[in-house]
């Protein structure tokens, strides 16, 4: 690694290392100084705003402003000068069922349903199964490990696993090697439009099960042992205990994990970008938005419309998630 690049711009480096903390410290000290000048009664009303101020500014500049900027931009044409009303939305939503954004919308729905449900299913399965064995932590570490891999690296790994060689040649990809053992012809996993999206979702599931498992496992451990004991004394079998006691108690956590997964499924981008680039009918909204925005002729209006569609799809889930989160907090 060549660190000399850091020395190319010494003033910037110094400004970042020394300047940023210095400015923050000066802000806090200065703010506190000003607050003390105020009458005693006014201080509690002003002080929180001083402390929360930087965060508000950052959220405003980097989140609120871009969101409304995107919304505004989505009503204008490519040049950004002419108001076109809902024209960009009409453009993207025309051509049902195969034109424009519809393939991407269809695939996002696949992701939404399959990714969310299967990650939850496997996460819950592994959480419950590993709970009962002595070698729990090594198993859980192994299953959690894919979370530590960036999704770009994960996609490259799965591209190798899905790789295809002609029938008769040695199969270098894991999946086709397995098929070869059973004397089945190799499959072009990511080049066949009928299965490519599902192949990508499978890679995503592999990458995310660990996340669901860890949180669900923690929730499982939070269930008091005497509750299960009482159920057993009452004569309930293990399956009944899971269905009637464990599952209902874990429900709030499952919902929070589930909604997080839904948001992730709607945002799916890296796997698609790396593995197929949206070819073979695997496009998703986030990839479409990226392509529209960053490839000439830079359709920023259309791209913003796709972004807004995506935001509109996420917002209800987000609200539900926040409510659920609060409900869980309130029960503590």
């Amino acid at each position: 690694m060549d660190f000399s690049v850091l020395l190319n711009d010494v003033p910037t480096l110094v400004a970042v290392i020394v300047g940023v903390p210095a400015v923050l410290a000066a802000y806090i000290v200065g703010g506190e100084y000003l607050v003390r000048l105020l009458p005693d009664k006014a201080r509690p009303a002003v002080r929180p705003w001083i402390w929360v101020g930087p965060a508000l500014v950052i959220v405003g500049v980097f989140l609120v402003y871009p969101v409304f900027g995107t919304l505004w931009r989505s009503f204008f044409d490519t040049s950004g000068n002419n108001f076109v009303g809902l024209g960009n939305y009409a453009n993207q939503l025309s051509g049902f069922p195969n034109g424009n954004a519809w393939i991407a919308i269809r695939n996002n729905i696949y992701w939404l349903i399959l990714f969310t449900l299967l990650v939850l299913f496997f996460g819950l399965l592994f959480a419950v199964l590993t709970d009962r064995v002595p070698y729990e932590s090594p198993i859980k570490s192994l299953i959690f490990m894919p979370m530590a891999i960036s999704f770009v690296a994960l996609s490259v790994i799965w591209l190798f696993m899905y790789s295809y060689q002609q029938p008769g040649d040695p199969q270098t990809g894991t999946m086709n090697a397995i098929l070869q053992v059973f004397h089945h012809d190799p499959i072009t996993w990511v080049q066949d439009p009928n299965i490519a999206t599902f192949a990508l979702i499978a890679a995503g599931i592999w990458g995310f099960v660990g996340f669901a498992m860890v949180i669900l496992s923690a929730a499982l451990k939070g269930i008091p042992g005497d509750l299960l004991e009482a159920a057993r004394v009452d004569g309930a079998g293990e399956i009944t205990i899971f269905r009637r006691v464990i599952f209902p108690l874990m429900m709030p956590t499952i919902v929070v994990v589930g909604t997080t997964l839904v948001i992730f499924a709607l945002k799916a981008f890296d796997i698609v970008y790396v593995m197929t680039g949206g070819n073979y009918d695997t496009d998703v909204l986030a990839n479409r938005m990226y392509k529209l925005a960053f490839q000439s002729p830079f359709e920023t209006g259309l791209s913003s419309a796709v972004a807004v569609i995506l935001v509109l799809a996420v917002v209800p889930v987000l609200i539900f998630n926040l409510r659920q989160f609060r409900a869980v907090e309130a029960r503590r």
Partner: protein
Amino acid sequence: MIGRRLTTLIGAGMAALVALVACGTGSTASKGSVHVLAVWAAAEQDSFLATLKPFEDQTGIKVLYESTRDVDSVLATRLAAGNPPEIAALPSLASVNKYAGQGKLVQLDNGILDMNTMNAQYSPGWIKLGTINGKLYQIFAWASVKGLIWYNPTKFAAKGYQVPTDWASLMALSAKIKADGTTPWCIAVASGAASGWPGSDWVKEIVLSQSGPTVYDSWWQGKTKWTDPAIKNAWLTWGTILGPNDSNVSGGAKTILSQPFGNGGDGLFKNPPKCYMHNQASFITANFVSQDKAVPGTDFKFFPLPDVDPQFAGAHVGGGDSFSMFKDTSQSRALIKYLTTPEAQAIWVKRGGKLSPNKSFDPANYPDDITRQVAAVMTGAKIFDFDAGDLMPTVMFNAYWAAVLKFVADQSKLDSILANLDTIQATAYK
């Protein structure tokens, strides 16, 4: 108390900052620096940095090189922020056109470059490529030529196959190889998000050689439709190379679509060979040597893709690495001048993988005979046109690549594929 101590600390910090800034600017202000943005990474980056080394040594100017595979996006963002690099190597001429139109580029034939030297060193074609609305906005440092058919001379000799000299003999050879029980061609188009481009090379080479430069130019300019008989004909001609259901190609559609382009020619060197011919630009020889342990000259040679229509004999599609200037400083002027010199270009050429577009370039600088022969194809071309993909807007050439994938999967869908390209063409050129 705490407040006062903090204030002292901050004061000390500020003082240190000022001192460091003074030192920092003091040490770098001598000759200045120039930022360059380009796509080259890994081995290519090493070659580019090696090219810059003598420049840095002679002038004392520091070149700050930034590499990204996504030059279009990065540049668009940097320009929007008012902070472009001084010099960028743009992979797409469509972007150069756009930025020139917006006045974001620095005109180069207006005192920056000595146009007498430029005209003496570059053929009018290269100058014309960099000229937009009568002003020169980019210069070419390196070039490449496409449409080279690689074959294995040993395997050819074993079967008594002759190198074809015209289109009819190419088709006859293909039929003969097929009759002998082998697929004549190896084709591989997988390339991550850019999948499909090797097939698009086939089509554009056929367009130029079959319908000539006038049709070719109006096609990439978006004036000739994809459904136009000339363009459709090129796809159909490529279809005759692929054969019905891609049966002329090793492994058929599944292999064409799933094989990474870098492994495309491996079948030439298998025993028995999986195919006898592979169409790819000259860079592929590096893969032959490293992956297949093939020896240039004995294990592989090439012949240029024969003329489809003799009316346009000697037509070849090529590419090039161009540089444009976004900020006019004395350092960026010096660098762009340096990159037009044959001495600078020779550094990368000697390392392999590039040709020089410069007329005064000494062929002795080419690293081997094959590269010298490839260069001869470029300099000897009667019609030399630039890669149409690099000339189209990004959306257009991405759709073009995606269309290749669909065509390979099912040739019978050509009409709907071309109709779809027409709808994209209608909005891509604004």
